[in-house]
């Protein structure tokens, strides 16, 4: 099952020559790369190199200038933001963007919003179809609560949870929508070594279990290099390297612009 096929065998995500300007500043100066199916792709680069901008272009928050972003062969240009989820693109946010007044359970259920279809009238009348949809959502929800170890806090309001747990809730919220591509914005931020190792396991598990691709923006080199199938490095809105983790971290440009000598050695 797929949407707008035609090039279904190609890569899941194709970023082609994307240019993005804010006023006079060029944030992305023609970036291209692909993410294959069931791949984990790491996106690295110094702060301000355009990672988050690119991320936001893919998820539709920014409208890029020229170039094209294709998902399953279908162009995302001009597509409304709320359509992304339906196509199969899920995401998390750098600083965690949960619905703070709601419980963990309700937060996750919002993640499944696009999977159901009943509208205002049906909801007000609580038609059987609506009830069936609700029940279906609950089943997936239970599964994820266990997988991400959130069952104990399911009824808690998210604003009362510690940062690390909130990050997991956000991940769960993205996963319940059954994405084919998961965009993760610094999932390791604020986690210590042990927690990062857990995250690494979790990412592999998720890929296997949900059969999806991940685009990972992350500064934590150990994580990126260990978990990614391919890595793309940006600087000043330009791609400076693209390839396997090993190749990219040996790239002199990457070392100069991003890693610095010690980190390169350390990560290796």
């Amino acid at each position: 099952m797929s949407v707008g096929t035609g090039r279904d065998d190609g890569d899941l995500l194709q970023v082609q020559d994307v240019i993005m300007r804010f006023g006079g500043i060029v944030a992305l100066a023609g970036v291209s790369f692909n993410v294959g199916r069931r791949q984990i792709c790491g996106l690295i680069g110094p702060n301000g190199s355009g990672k988050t901008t690119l991320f936001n272009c893919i998820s539709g928050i920014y409208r890029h200038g020229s170039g094209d972003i294709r998902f399953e062969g279908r162009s995302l240009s001009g597509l409304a933001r709320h359509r992304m989820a339906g196509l199969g693109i899920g995401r998390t946010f750098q600083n965690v963007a949960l619905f703070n007044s709601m419980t963990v359970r309700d937060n996750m259920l919002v993640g499944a919003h696009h999977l159901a279809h009943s509208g205002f009238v049906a909801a007000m009348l609580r038609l059987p179809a609506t009830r069936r949809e609700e029940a279906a959502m609950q089943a997936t929800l239970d599964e994820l609560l266990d997988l991400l170890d959130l069952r104990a806090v399911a009824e808690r309001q998210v604003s009362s949870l510690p940062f690390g747990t909130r990050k997991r809730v956000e991940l769960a919220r993205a996963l319940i929508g059954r994405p084919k591509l998961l965009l993760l914005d610094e999932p390791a931020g604020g986690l210590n070594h042990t927690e990062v190792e857990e995250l690494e396991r979790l990412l592999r598990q998720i890929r296997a279990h949900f059969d999806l691709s991940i685009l990972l923006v992350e500064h934590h080199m150990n994580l990126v290099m260990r978990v990614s199938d391919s890595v793309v490095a940006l600087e000043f809105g330009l791609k400076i390297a693209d390839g396997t983790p090993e190749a990219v971290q040996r790239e002199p440009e990457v070392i100069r612009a991003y890693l610095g000598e010690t980190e390169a050695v350390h990560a290796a």
Partner: protein
Amino acid sequence: MGRTLLRHWPLLFLAFAAVVPTVALSNYQLFQLTMVAVYAVAILGLNIVTGFNGQISLGHGAFYAVGAYVTAIMMDKWGVPYWATLPVSALICACTGFLVGLPALRLGGLYLALTTFALAVATPQLLKYKLFEGWTGGVQGIVIDKPDPPFGLPINADQWLYLFSLAVAAVMFLLAANLVRGRIGRAMMAVRDQPTAAEAMGIDLAMFKTRTFAVSAMLTGIAGSLGAIAIQFVAPDSFAVFLSITLFVGLVVGGVASIGGTIFGAFFIEFVPNLAEQVSKAAPGAVYGIILIAFLFLMPGGLAGALRKLLRLA
């Protein structure tokens, strides 16, 4: 046992509210309770859009007025029975709400609040506008008849009006509760809490904001219709800006985003002005203001917020 009772408290409340007052209270007191039911539905409408969806409206009196006028005009000009005007009023108010909601897509927070406030101020002048005068009766307004109890029920008109309003209110509360409890309600709150993330979850902000406005206007409009039937009179002066402010006060003291709190808010706006007036004829406004401030001072989250806190401690 306790939990079951708790879960069914709306039903118990409804049964209690239907039987006890009808038997025990005078016609005048029943009339007051009728108005409480009316205001409760009006505040409920406001709560949907402001409490659950986070779009602050200070102009819901306008929708109340539209509902009231639709009913009054239909009864007066075309002799439509009172109950039959409700669906029409609901539809027209929903459309009006949808249209008002369109600019709301671009205007956030404060700007929306003040724009709707301006709408509230402009409402009487629009109702008086000469082009509509043939229908609205201009400044004179419209006097309508009080409904008699149907099927030869052995009750008087006030008792019937109370039961009718209560029944309509109960249905509205049920619809609203269904709405906010399910997928749509969660999406409404998601839009309020974190619009960017909501959009990433596949929620169409524009669609949600305008439709929420429509539902909200529909509820408040139905309240307007009921209010017109109960008061038997509509005139531009009945829908001055203070009506919108009153509804807002009801929302805040009842508790934002609380369905049950709405009922308390309605009691507050119905009875506190009378209380204030009994305290001082010289400055009832000051007494009302002080009661309001004192209340919010003690319970900034409204009654619902205070109860929630209490339950959490217990």
